[in-house]
């Protein structure tokens, strides 16, 4: 079998097939430590606080947020786009990298897909609760009815969003679950307690490991990967069209679809990075998520960060070049208006900070990587805030110019979704095989340090 003479091994610590099984099953078979519990409790409190704020919003009215007549969307849609963006990396890693035969994906795809699903769940919350009348929200679906031509408005990008997000969520979920089946079966086979065995045998859908099963599994994975790939591009393109098809200066921009997709991958990888850096420490996965993985992800962050930076500068250039007064003012206002700090926070975090990844030393430094990933989260959040709020707050008629200030409910819901996300993730980390071990085992012979000793001469 071919072994690369220069590439670093993707699995370190001399693991053989059995070691992998044991390592992956360990978090599920042992009980949680103090760290897990304390993080879980904090997240759960945040989540409950967020749920409380959501209940308050639904019970009282959207007026409990800081919105006003001029700024109809602010943190709600900012958070929505932020979470959807985060949800991008998972599919990209598992689908696109699968099609490109990037084996390093194998250690991280399960977690990044889980992240995708949890993030899309958070994202999906916001369009729901931002509605004035959630209880009639189902009208966004083209349901047959007796009212003759009463139908949804297919011209509305918000409707496209409904389809895009729901499709993305369901395909991602199926794809993720497909991969999980052999791993659940592995856990089922090792389980000793009857209830655990029952649950995992249910979850593994009677997987027997027969060749036919494997063959179908592989084909299905490939088909779903093929389905997912265009979705990676479509979802955020459509989200961006919420803005791009409008007339508001700062929204009405043709560059948005590619710029949003790049931004989403950028933000998604940063979240992947954050979660994996914690996970490899907490559940001892250093051997599977190696420095190489981190470096690869950092390179993607660097590349997409640069694309995003280019997009920012293109926007500024086009605003000047277009000669449109409103457009020009909108961008001047972003950089020098009352929300200049948001714009410069975005610029610093998204454009400048990833550029440090050009230095190999830095991009292989775990602490530095972690800090930059946090910077990217902040930057990407501010990107959406800048696009949404600073475009809306000063549009065409100065008479209706306004400002936005979040209330405790805005804040509570945002923190609540972070809590909810972490709760889901923490539960996942203890009950799901966090690495796609069945797939990973396929590269043990080629990419593991046990069999690939030419780098360090072990």
């Amino acid at each position: 079998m071919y072994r690369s003479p220069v590439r670093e091994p993707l699995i370190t610590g001399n693991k053989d097939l059995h070691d992998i099984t044991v390592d992956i099953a360990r978090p599920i078979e042992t009980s949680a430590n103090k760290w897990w519990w304390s993080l879980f409790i904090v997240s759960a409190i945040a989540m409950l606080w967020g749920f409380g704020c959501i209940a308050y919003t639904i019970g009282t009215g959207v007026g409990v947020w800081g919105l006003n007549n001029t700024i109809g969307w602010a943190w709600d849609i900012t958070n929505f786009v932020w979470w959807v963006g985060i949800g991008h990396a998972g599919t990209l890693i598992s689908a696109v990298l699968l099609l490109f035969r990037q084996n390093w994906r194998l250690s991280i795809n399960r977690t990044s897909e889980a992240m995708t699903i949890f993030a899309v769940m958070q994202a999906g919350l916001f369009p729901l609760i931002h509605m004035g009348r959630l209880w009639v929200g189902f009208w966004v679906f083209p349901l047959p009815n007796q009212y003759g031509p009463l139908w949804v408005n297919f011209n509305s990008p918000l409707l496209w969003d409904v389809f895009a997000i729901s499709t993305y969520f369901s395909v991602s979920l199926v794809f993720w679950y497909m991969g999980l089946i052999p791993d659940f079966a592995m856990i089922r086979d090792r389980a000793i307690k009857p209830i655990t065995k029952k649950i995992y045998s249910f979850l593994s859908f009677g997987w027997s490991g027969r060749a036919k099963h494997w063959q179908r599994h592989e084909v299905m994975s490939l088909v779903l990967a093929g389905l997912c790939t265009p979705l990676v591009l479509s979802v955020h393109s459509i989200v961006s069209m919420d803005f791009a098809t409008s007339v508001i200066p700062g929204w009405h921009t043709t560059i948005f679809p590619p710029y949003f997709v790049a931004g989403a991958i950028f933000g998604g990888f940063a979240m992947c990075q954050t979660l994996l850096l914690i996970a490899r420490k907490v559940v001892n996965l250093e051997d599977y998520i190696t420095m190489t993985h981190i470096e690869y992800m950092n390179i993607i962050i660097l590349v997409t960060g640069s694309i995003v930076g280019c997009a920012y500068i293109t926007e500024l250039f086009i605003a000047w070049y277009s000669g449109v007064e409103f457009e020009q003012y909108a961008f001047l206002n972003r950089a020098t208006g009352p929300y200049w700090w948001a714009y410069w926070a975005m610029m610093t975090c998204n454009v400048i900070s990833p550029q440090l990844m050009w230095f190999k030393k830095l991009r292989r430094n775990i602490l530095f990587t972690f800090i930059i990933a946090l910077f990217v989260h902040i930057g990407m959040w501010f990107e959406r805030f800048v696009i949404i709020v600073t475009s809306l707050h000063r549009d065409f008629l100065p008479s209706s110019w306004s400002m936005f200030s979040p209330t405790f409910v805005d804040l509570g819901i945002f923190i609540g979704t972070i809590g909810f996300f972490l709760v889901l993730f923490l539960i996942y980390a203890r009950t799901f095989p966090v690495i796609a071990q069945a797939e990973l085992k396929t590269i043990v012979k080629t990419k593991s340090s046990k069999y690939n000793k030419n780098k360090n001469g072990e």
Partner: protein
Amino acid sequence: MKEQKKYFKSPYLKGNEDFLHKEFSDKLPVDHFLADQKENNYGTSRRDFLKFLGFSTAAAVLSSCESPIQKSVPYLNQPEEIIPGVANFYASTYYQENTFASILVKTREGRPISVSANKDYEKITSHSGGLNSRAYASVLSLYDSNRLKSPLKNNNEVSWDELDNEVIKSLNQISKTKNKIVYLSPTIISPSHKKILESFQKKYNNLEVVYYDPISKSAIIEANKSCFGESFIPTYNFDKAKVVVSFEADFLGDWLDASHGRKYSSRRNPGTNMSKHYQFESLLTLTGSNSDKRVPVNPDEQLKYLMYIFSKLSMTKQEVVIENLNHKAILDNICKELQENQGESLVISGSSDPQNQIIVNAINYLLDNYSKTIDYNNKSNLYSGVNSIFKRFLDDVEANKVGALIINDLNIIYNVPQLRDKLNNIKLKVQITDSKNETSKYMDFVCPKSHFLESWGDANPYTAIYAIQQPTINPLFNSRESEQILLKWSGYEESYYNYLKTFYKNMSFKKSWNKILHDGYCEIDYKRNDYIFSSKVAKDITKNYNPSQSNKNDTFLVLYSKISMGQGYQSNNPWLQELPDPVTKVTWDNYLTINPVHAKKLGLKNWHVSNGALNGDVVLIKMGEKSIKAPVYIQPGQKQNVLGLCFGYGRTEAGKVASGVGVNAFEIHDNFNLVQKNNFSITKVEGVEHEFACTQNSHTMMGRSIVKETTLNEYLKNPKSGNEDFKLESYKGKVSPSELNLYQEWEPSVHFWNMSIDLSKCHGCGACVIACHAENNVPVVGKEEVRKNRDMHWLRIDRYYSSDMTKDLAEEKGIGAIEMYKMMEEPASEENLEVVFQPVMCQHCNQAPCENVCPVAATTHSNEGLNQMTYNRCIGTRYCMNNCPYKVRRFNWFNYKDNDNFDFNMNDDLGKMVLNPDVTVRARGVMEKCSMCIQNIQKTKLDAKRERRKVRDGEVSIACETACDTGAIVFGDALDSNSRISKEKKHPRTYALLEELNTQPSVFYKTKVRNKNKINKNV
């Protein structure tokens, strides 16, 4: 299902499925889901049977769940004139706070729901309606839950009989003593009321009637007394004046007569006949904002300028020398123009100093304006209060000479706070009032007065006009008219209605009683005498005139009243509280206005907090022993060293709406002077900040072409000046935006409802905003929500100040864009400041950005060119609001009805009676906006259909158009080529707001034309 047999239904059906007048143009698509085509052929199939079985079981189960039943009680004997669903209109009269208007009251199912101008009165008489925002809002005051519900004795409820007996007993006792009985009232314009007072006086012969107008026009009356030998106020014909020079007279706001605006604007059509308006003023008023040339001056310089004009006009050959005269060039120019337009000019002054008014009279006399622009025969009776008489009354109270005080419709303790401790000496104190107020607790008896919509009454506002007030609803509470009360106390047992009827029958008018009642007014011929004008008084003043050495450090406090609040009579009316001040755009407040430079000197600041709302410093105003705390509002354009404070606020016992809002300027209304000079001090109160609720926080147009403006000269040369065609660069070359359309062109089919707004005529007074509230059930949201920029006004009036920075100037001086925009945000300096107003409501775009983006098609386009909002379908994503370039959509952030957090009229059963039954009260979470009064369009269309004719031009009554006294708003069907709107649409001044977006609005604006020589490019 198969239709097996056809039974005879109507002759139309014979051989023709498409019968006339069918309810649905298409078949309801029931068959599609009930059965498919194939099974249709076989009659009811097994599957259909099962479907019906399932459906009927479900229906039977569901129908057994009872929904709450609200029982309504029908009329036992239905009144003849009331048809449920059809509005009745009654002519009546509005007179409050010295403002008169002939009105038309709209009632539905027996309750008045709105008032509007009596258009016949306007058409036939030379007078105009004069309805201001207060008159439009007065219908809500009828349903004020704070109204007095029964007579009170020492604050305990009593019956009318008991009250009558005790009051009559006391009056009889007092009439036997030396002490006076004083009937204190604001100016009474009701002839029958005066007649009743006469008989009242006969019964109690020591009765004295004292008129007190909280903001008196005493100076004019006294000046006329000196000049003409008679105390009166003339009527001013602004429609006949080509040159108007006003000194501090806010005649478009709240000065003298609300009907001035209409007359004034009739001369504001751009053309050779357009009037020229100069305004000398210290504060920035509504009138100054609309003037062609506004000159900020100190209030005490007024006499100097008047003197200069007077001398210059009377001594044409000599050179007039007055020391330290500013604005000489302007004054010389004014003199020239006045002389050129003798008999077609008008000089007025708002001063409360009779001297100034005498000079004004003399100037008008010199200019031959009397009997032309000033009608001294047709007198205005709206203000009769004379300060000296009221002061004598105060002395009487002090000297213990008043035995009984009957206060009619006044809140004297609020207006004259120094009376507070002096009333104890009076033996009998009676108040006639419609709601409990600051005065009531000092009274022995409080008599509930019926609201004017519940009362009979009459009025003689001008010599030539008699008007009748008729009730449109039975008194809601145990109340009476003032006249009825007086009749009772004078010993008549007759009802006031009979008295009034007899009174008018005896007047021998040309019109019969019923005719007057129907029309609401009667015009009479009046004698036209020539008065002898004594110019001696004016000459004396000139001779003795010694221009006071004005000190640079002189500070002035100018007390003013604004159009929405007046004297505070209706301050408990939430519509008026939420109506933004026309100039400052502040709601729910009064404040000390101050010039920006002056404020900086004193270290006073206004600043915006993180949600964009305005905060300000608070100052302590000390005047003698009195002191009040007021927030500071920095007002560009106001003269330096002049401070302004508005009347009508600071009520403490007004009810749930007004109590605690603002400060009471009457506290420092020292000596009834509107201008206080150097007798006060202001100091900043440390550590306190005031929260304002402004509806507009950015004040300039930022160099954008929003309100297009030109000068009269330019306009006469080129009618399209200021409104040059907008062209976009494109691959086709320069084209108009509509040629670059992505969408299908929308074509109107039957009607095409359009609206035109003439910015030259709009004064920004805000009456339309209130009329819109009343018509469309627009909720009041309160100060906190307005502060958060969540006002619900469907129609707002944008006000922009000019800026000293323009794009041309920036280019000339090489100023960069960032710096330029920063400077553009700043309003111009006081000398250069100009103001424009622009009403903005839903523009009903025919390529509407909002319609595209709604996911559930809740906002759609009608085939008549209207953008429709379907509240029932709205899920509240607010996408439409974001995508609206005009930001006219309003979201129901909360439930505004039956919600204790919004304790205004929609939170109590009484207040809800004002709601228009034709318009839905919107639920929480839905978007709303201007519907172009679709309910009235529909009604008019149905009327026309029933009468088998086309809708006539001007027949549809749109709340804002009807309310607009100046005729700035024109509404109609643009498919009707003879309609007014079709002509407006083709007018060279017409333009669409933000036309570069190609939204193709159904609302368009007409360029503002100012009668001045040079254009300020960046207004």
